[in-house]
């Protein structure tokens, strides 16, 4: 890269910053937790995960963490995804494919509206605990 001007340095910093921020989990309150058990992966959880990441990047969302977890026990509705947004109830979505993932980011995370026809019941509390 050639020598930079002040503007170029600032531009580089802000683009690199968003890259770094996605690595950092401190202080981020919105969580997308993708079930990546064998059942989830077989049902296409990876595609959903990629779609989440792309949608977050496309919308330039800063405080969202995407995490993976094991099977949530709802194998019949895989891929399953838990979404936690401050001020909203924790929601588990089932049958999340790439398109639904994109919808979740746009509706649920940005506009704080749940994506109705994919909501699953939470397994009984004792199973989670």
């Amino acid at each position, binding site marked *: 890269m050639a020598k*930079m*001007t*002040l503007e170029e340095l600032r531009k580089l910093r802000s683009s690199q910053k968003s890259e770094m921020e996605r690595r950092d989990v401190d202080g981020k309150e919105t969580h997308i937790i993708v079930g*990546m058990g064998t059942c989830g992966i077989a049902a296409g959880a990876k595609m959903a995960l*990629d779609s989440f990441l792309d949608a977050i990047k496309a919308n330039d969302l800063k405080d969202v963490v995407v995490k993976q977890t094991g099977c949530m026990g709802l194998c019949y509705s895989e891929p399953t995804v838990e979404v936690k947004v401050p001020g909203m109830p924790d929601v588990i979505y089932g049958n999340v494919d790439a398109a639904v993932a994109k919808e979740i980011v746009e509706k649920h995370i940005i506009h704080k509206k749940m994506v109705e026809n994919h909501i699953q019941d939470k397994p009984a509390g004792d199973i989670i605990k």
Partner: protein
Amino acid sequence: MAVKNYILVCGGTACESAKGDDIYKALLKEAEAHGVADDVQIVKTGCFGFCEKGPIVKVLPEQAFYVEVVPEDAKEIISETIVKGRIVERIQYQPEKGAKGEAFDIENIEFYQKQYRIVLRNCGLINPENIDEYIARDGYSALEKCLFEMKPDDIIEELKKSGLRGRGGAGFPTWMKWNFTKQVDGGQKYVVCNADEGDPGAYMDRSTLEGDPHSVLEAMIIAGICVGADYGAIYIRAEYPLAIERLETAMKQAREYGLLGNDILGSGFNFDIELRLGAGAFVCGEETALLASIEGKRGMPIPKPPFPAVKGLFRKPTVINNVETFANIPIIITKGGDWFAQIGTEKSKGTKVFALTGKIKNSGLVEVPMGTTLREIVFDIGGGIRGGKKFKAVQTGGPSGGVITEEFLDTPIDFDNLVSIGSMMGSGGMIVMDEDDCIVDVTKFYLEFCVEESCGKCAPCRIGTKKLYEYLDRFTKGKGQIEDIQKMKDIGNAMKKASLCGLGQTAANPVLSTLRYFPEEYRQHIEDGKCIAGKCKDLVHYEIVTEKCIGCTVCARKCPVNCIEGERKKPHVIDQTKCIKCGACYEGCKFDAIIVS
């Protein structure tokens, strides 16, 4: 495709030597094999500080914190954590205390809880070989500010507000040093970074340079802007190859970006930095000796004044600061002096990085706000003494420092408090001793170091260190006399007053402080010919108690010189003429049948 996982592999020297690089390569290979190479970014970072449990591998955003990783673990890390998002419990850090089942969080590791990382803010987080990651963490924004928004006087003002004092040891206010150089009118001026770091047991400067080289480069350029220098040099010992390599990479990248060299960011300001490798002489950490060494002369100190700030490198005004001091500067400029001044004690602001070593459970790099007590560092962060032994003392400040005993454990640590209890901050080495350490033996070790490292230019240091060493050596052989103690105090005090440089002036500190706090142990060595810790070989005598020995043969098998004999199931005997007093038999005996006297 966006990256979904980050694996941070510690690339500090300690972890690197424990196959850190092999782990890194194995992870890359396994990621490829599992077809996830595009999903995961594997980054080699600087030291995480938690060297005791190294090599450390951190996976984000899972918050997996893997300790004591071996290259063979790479497969499982990729197949479990990356592909399936599961934590590999086997290598996950296990907190010693704390409720089980509690959500695991890196922030909850006791080792990190009381720490406050300013100097090490980027270590373990960014890839030190990639300037973009430093820039992403607000890197070079302080430089921007200094080039386009602040005047040199503003920079001095900010440093003054911050209360930053030099981290090399003596704690001289940084703003004053800079101001002296700045006030000299025109002409050639220099900025020098002291990265010599020769204290036994200290390695924080090396870790800072390895983990975050750009922070030091940025601070040096800022110093150049402030005082009007266009050339800087980093004096680093050749024994730090990894730090040198990372610095070279960082300088190259900064030059390519136009952050170093001519016309920085189009501002018209020129500044370049050169590395100068030192051969690893302790005296070259002393600023005037260091400058002589850069000039190509033999590294020996010259009397001050004139101070380097006015007549330094090639007799030109020179700002010379230590690595840790520089690493504080960019963040002070970015966040402001007032922010920095909130941290720490009244007269010592900010944080201090210590290299915690010795008989401690969690050895490693520790950064705490000034004013943290020694007890918090040793017992809360360090996890206490290894093997349930009893705490004896902490040696701080290297050969220039002294020991701190139990009664001072609750003293808030800062520059002035340490001096008032007979030790000093020094560069920040902290060596913890337990009941098995002999205070006379440890002091002898430090004096031996000083004898070897004294440059020999002035008599008080050259002769004084040697004489003190000889006395200590005689004590460890049981040949001392009680009058020697007074003579040692006299010599030590003379060295303090008459030595040419700071090293000679402080070389007697270990002797003076141990004489002050452990007079009884000295007396035992001299009058009773006894070493209670069992470290002074000439005073130790191992013997097998016939009544207790069941003839298990363990001691005979452990003995490296085969001086223990006896039939199975019958009492054994040590041949005192052959015994080398290594203590292996004593350590090995399960029946307390061997006594030390």
